[in-house]
């Protein structure tokens, strides 16, 4: 482990990028995924169709292709993200970083939508019907009755989606963001004799991060369980 410990600050910075990609894309895909799911299950046929097409298109495209699209094709059609240039401590969030966040968000949004939709479908139809029967409008039916129950049913699939996203951030390493995977590759090149321990160390850190997420999701699920 010496190599990893000797480079602790570089490794920490790399995981800083990883986690920031995860948090930013996680929050954004959470917001857009919820909107997309509302379109998907809502009463307006056109919106529902549009959401379904988005999900089919994006979900069936490999993540690497989605991110490469935003990294290389995006600038050609004016999506340069050059206005993004933020420094937080040693983290430098530039246009490459932004392209990766957009790619991850676009991709994960489709999965969040599907996780939420499965949660909505898990809610008994009678619940929405009873809510309509007391005079709640569509928005109230959703907000007060369907979504709270759907959220609960969606916690496990949403956790899977976001755990997958955490690991998917490694794809950004290929595209110029110095996140964990890129740093690991750098270290294995510089310290060829310690390759195995570098691999193991990085894998272990990912395992710990994923475990934290799983634990949080299990807690949430338990807290929200209907008494």
């Amino acid at each position, binding site marked *: 482990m010496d190599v990893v410990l000797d480079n602790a600050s570089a490794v920490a910075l790399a995981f800083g990028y990883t986690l920031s990609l995860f948090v930013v894309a996680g929050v954004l895909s959470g917001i857009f995924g919820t909107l997309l799911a509302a379109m998907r299950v809502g009463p307006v046929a056109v919106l529902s169709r549009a959401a379904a097409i988005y999900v089919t298109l994006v979900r069936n495209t490999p993540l690497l292709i989605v991110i490469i699209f935003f990294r290389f094709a995006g600038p050609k059609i004016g999506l340069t993200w050059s206005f993004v240039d933020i420094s937080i401590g040693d983290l430098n969030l530039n246009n490459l970083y932004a392209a990766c966040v957009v790619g991850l968000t676009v991709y994960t949004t489709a999965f969040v939508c599907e996780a939420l939709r499965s949660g909505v479908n898990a809610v*008994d139809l*009678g*619940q929405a*019907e*009873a*809510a*309509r*029967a*007391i*005079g*709640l*409008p569509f928005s*109230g039916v959703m907000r*007060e*009755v369907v979504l*709270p*129950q759907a959220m*609960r049913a969606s916690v496990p699939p949403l956790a899977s989606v976001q755990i997958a996203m955490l690991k998917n951030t490694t794809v950004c390493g290929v595209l110029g963001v110095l996140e964990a995977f890129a740093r690991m590759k750098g270290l294995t090149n510089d310290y060829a004799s310690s390759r195995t321990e570098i691999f193991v160390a990085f894998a272990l850190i990912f395992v710990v991060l994923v475990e934290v997420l799983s634990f949080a999701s299990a807690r949430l699920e338990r807290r929200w369980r*209907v*008494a």
Partner: protein
Amino acid sequence: MTALENEERTPGTGEPLVVLDKVDKWFGQLHVLRDINLTVHRGEVVVVIGPSGSGKSTLCRAINRLETIDKGTITLDGQPLPQEGKELANLRAEVGMVFQSFNLFAHKTILENVTLGPIKVRKKPKAEAEARAHELLDRVGIGHQAAKYPAQLSGGQQQRVAIARALAMEPKVMLFDEPTSALDPEMIKEVLDVMVDLAERGMTMVVVTHEMGFARTAADRVLFMADGQVVEENTPEQFFTNPQSDRAKDFLGKILKH
């Protein structure tokens, strides 16, 4: 208690409250409601009875527009049912509905189940809504369970909460779709007792049920439906002792045997 509830019960003499005029409905090819004409007067209790698939639930659900109709008109208190949006939601607030499967909000406590409509739809202050909810829960005998969740109650208790939830909206009319058919026999009576009490307080009710005891004690009229039509309409006494149509005789023969 509202004025309406204290009023002496005068069956069928009130003005028309729910009026269905030449109502037709299809589910695809299936003609589920055929030329339904029905007037329910204020304070009246109408029991709807008939074989499975005859359209009883659909009739009930059409009255608060959980199902749309294809032809004819339905009016509530002189107002035609609105098509969509806010007016429709307002209409539904005026019509209480009790389902066969209770449909209490699973993630809310008993108290929250009863106060949700008054707070969110009627915009009542929370304290006032809760005070009224406690009153209603006491009335249906669930007063001491207000903090529990639906899953912790028996079916009969849940159905009584569902009745309280509907009453909390102070509806003009209450619709019951087989409110006791998902219940064990020992729980049926506790729910029927609440319904009889409601009828005696002058609530206008449309009740789909095969409980003849209830029909005899509480109903002013029995409507017999078959194949989407109202085949026979009579007082409970007349209907049960002296059915006119063959369909009704046949049907009563079957349910009386059991």
